[in-house]
C-alpha cells in the first residue's frame, strides 16, 4: 500500500519544552488515520510539521514523497487542511470565499454548488461568512479543503465544539470522501469519533506515540481480563468473568431466560489510553 505520509523520529522543541519526541508514523493511501490524544499532546504541531507550516527540530517528515520542509505549491495542490482556526473572509459571501480558492486552485467554479449542497449550505450561499454559525463555518472550511479533490485531507479536531447532529453530518461526509479515495489524517480527542471513522489510530501522549493500530485491535490487545455485563430480568446488573465458574453461571442464566442484555466489557480507546498513560483524553 502506498505511503502518503512518512514521519521518522520527529522531534520538535519550543525552547525548553519538548512538543514531539521521536514521533514515527505513516499514512497509507485510502485510509483514515486518527491521532488521538489530549490537548497539548502534540497533535496540531504534528499537522503543522507535515504541512510545512512548522519545521521540526530533528527527524524526517515526508508528504507525498517530498520533504515537508521543502513543501511547495505542487504538494499544496494535493492536500486540504481544516484546522480549528482555519480562517474565512467574514465580509465575503460563502460563495465568494469558495470562488477565491477555486480560482487559486484552478478548479471549475461550477463544482461549488454541488459541494455546498453536499454539506447542506446551499441556502447560505449568498450569506456573509461572518454570519454563519460555528458548525456552518466549519462546513464551509471543509468544502474549501475538498474543493480541489485532494489526495490527503488534514483535519485538526474537525468536530470540536459542534453539536452532535452537525458532527454526524461531517462524519458521514468524511466516510464518503474516504470511499472516493481521499486519505485522511485526523486529530481528535474524541474517542467515539476515532472509533467510528479511523482505520488506524495512534495514541499520542506528551509527544510520543504510546500505542498504534486498528481501534478494535488496540482494544482487544488490552482485553486481558475478559468480562461480560448482564442486565437481568429483575433489572439488576451482573458482571461475570471469563472463567469456568462464571461461564457456567452465565449458561444457567441464559437457559433460564433471565438475561435481558449481554455485553462484553473489552476496554475502550479511552480506557486503554488511561491505562497506558495514567491520564484521560479530555
Amino acid at each position, binding site marked *: 500500500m502506498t505511503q502518503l505520509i512518512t514521519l521518522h523520529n520527529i522531534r520538535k522543541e519550543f525552547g525548553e519544552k519538548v512538543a514531539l519526541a521521536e514521533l514515527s508514523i505513516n499514512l497509507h493511501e485510502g485510509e483514515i488515520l486518527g491521532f488521538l490524544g489530549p490537548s497539548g499532546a502534540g497533535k496540531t504541531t504534528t499537522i503543522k510539521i507535515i504541512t*510545512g*507550516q512548522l519545521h521540526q527540530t530533528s527527524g524526517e517528515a515526508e508528504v507525498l514523497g517530498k520533504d515537508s520542509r521543502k513543501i*511547495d*505549491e505542487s504538494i499544496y495542490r494535493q*492536500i486540504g*487542511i481544516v484546522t480549528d482556526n482555519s*480562517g*474565512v*473572509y467574514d465580509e465575503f459571501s460563502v460563495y465568494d470565499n469558495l470562488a477565491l*480558492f477555486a480560482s487559486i486552485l484552478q478548479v471549475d467554479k461550477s463544482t461549488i454548488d454541488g459541494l455546498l449542497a453536499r454539506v447542506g449550505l446551499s441556502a447560505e450561499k449568498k450569506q456573509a461568512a461572518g454570519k454563519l454559525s460555528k458548525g456552518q463555518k466549519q462546513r464551509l472550511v471543509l468544502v474549501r479543503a475538498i474543493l480541489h479533490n485532494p489526495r490527503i485531507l488534514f483535519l485538526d479536531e474537525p468536530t470540536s465544539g459542534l453539536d452532535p447532529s452537525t458532527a454526524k453530518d461531517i462524519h458521514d461526509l468524511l466516510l464518503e470522501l474516504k470511499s472516493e479515495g481521499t486519505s485522511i489524517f485526523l486529530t481528535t480527542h474524541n474517542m467515539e469519533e476515532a472509533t467510528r471513522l479511523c482505520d488506524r489510530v495512534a495514541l499520542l501522549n506528551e509527544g510520543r506515540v504510546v500505542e498504534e493500530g486498528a481501534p478494535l485491535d488496540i482494544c482487544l490487545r488490552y482485553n486481558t481480563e475478559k468480562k461480560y455485563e448482564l442486565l437481568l430480568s429483575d433489572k439488576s446488573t451482573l458482571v461475570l468473568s471469563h472463567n469456568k465458574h462464571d461461564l457456567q453461571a452465565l449458561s444457567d442464566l441464559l437457559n433460564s431466560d433471565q438475561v435481558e442484555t449481554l455485553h462484553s466489557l473489552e476496554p475502550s480507546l479511552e480506557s486503554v489510553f488511561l491505562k497506558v498513560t495514567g491520564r484521560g483524553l479530555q
Partner: protein
Amino acid sequence: MNISISRVITIAQFKFKELTKNKTFLIALAVIPGMTLVMRWLYTSMGEEFGEEMPPEIFGMVLAMGVLYVLTMLSISMPATLLSKDKEKHTLRALMTSSVSGGEYFLGSILPLLLIGIILNGVVLVISGLDMNMVNIPVFFLLTTLGIVTGNVLGMTIGIFAKDQMAAGNMATPFLLILMLIPMFSMLLESLAQISQYIYTGIVVDMIFNYSAGVAFILTPFKLGVMLVEIAAAIALFLFVYKRNGFEQD
C-alpha cells in the same frame, strides 16, 4: 520562487474587492480628494475675499498635501492593515497552504493599492487647482509612483511585525508622521529641509513646490538616487524580515 500570473491576478482582484469593503480605505478614498477640494476652495475663497488671485504656490501646497496622504495614509497603512488582517483572521494561513506563494501574495496585495494610488495622485493633481501646464506630468507620475511602491513595501514590512490590525495602525503611525510632516514643514524650517532632501516623500514634495513656484524641477542623479535607494532599502528590509519570519511567525 515561482510566481503564477493568474494567481497574482486572482489575489489582486480579491484584495481590490476587500478594499471596497474596508471602512478605513473608503474613508481614505473620500478624505484625500475631499480634503484637497476643501483646501482649494478655502484658499480660492480667501483670495476672492481679499480681491486677489492666490499664488500658485498655495495650490502647490494643496497638491503636496493630497499626494502626501496618498503616499502615506494609503500606501503605507493599507498594505499593513490588509496583511495584519489576514494574520488576525487566519486567512493568510489558508491562502499560503492553498498553493499561494509569498511572492504571489505580496504582488497581489500591493497591485490594487499601486493602481489606486496612481489614479488618486492623478485626481489630486487635477483638482488641486495648480495649473497643469506648470507640471511635468511624466516626471510627476514617475516620482509619485516610485513613492507609492516604497510605501507599499514599507507597509508590507510593518504588516509582518504587526499581529493584528490595531498593532499595524500603531506601528505605521510614526512612519506616517515622519514621512508627512518633515516634507510639509520643510518650507518653514531649514533644518527640516535638510532632512527632507534625503526622504522619498521630501523629493516628491520638493518637485511639487518647484513646479508651483514656476521653477524647473531637475531630476538630478542625487534625487533619483535617493528614490531608488529607498525603494531598494525597503525591498531589502522586507526580504530580510520575510526570510526570517515569513509573513507570520509561530
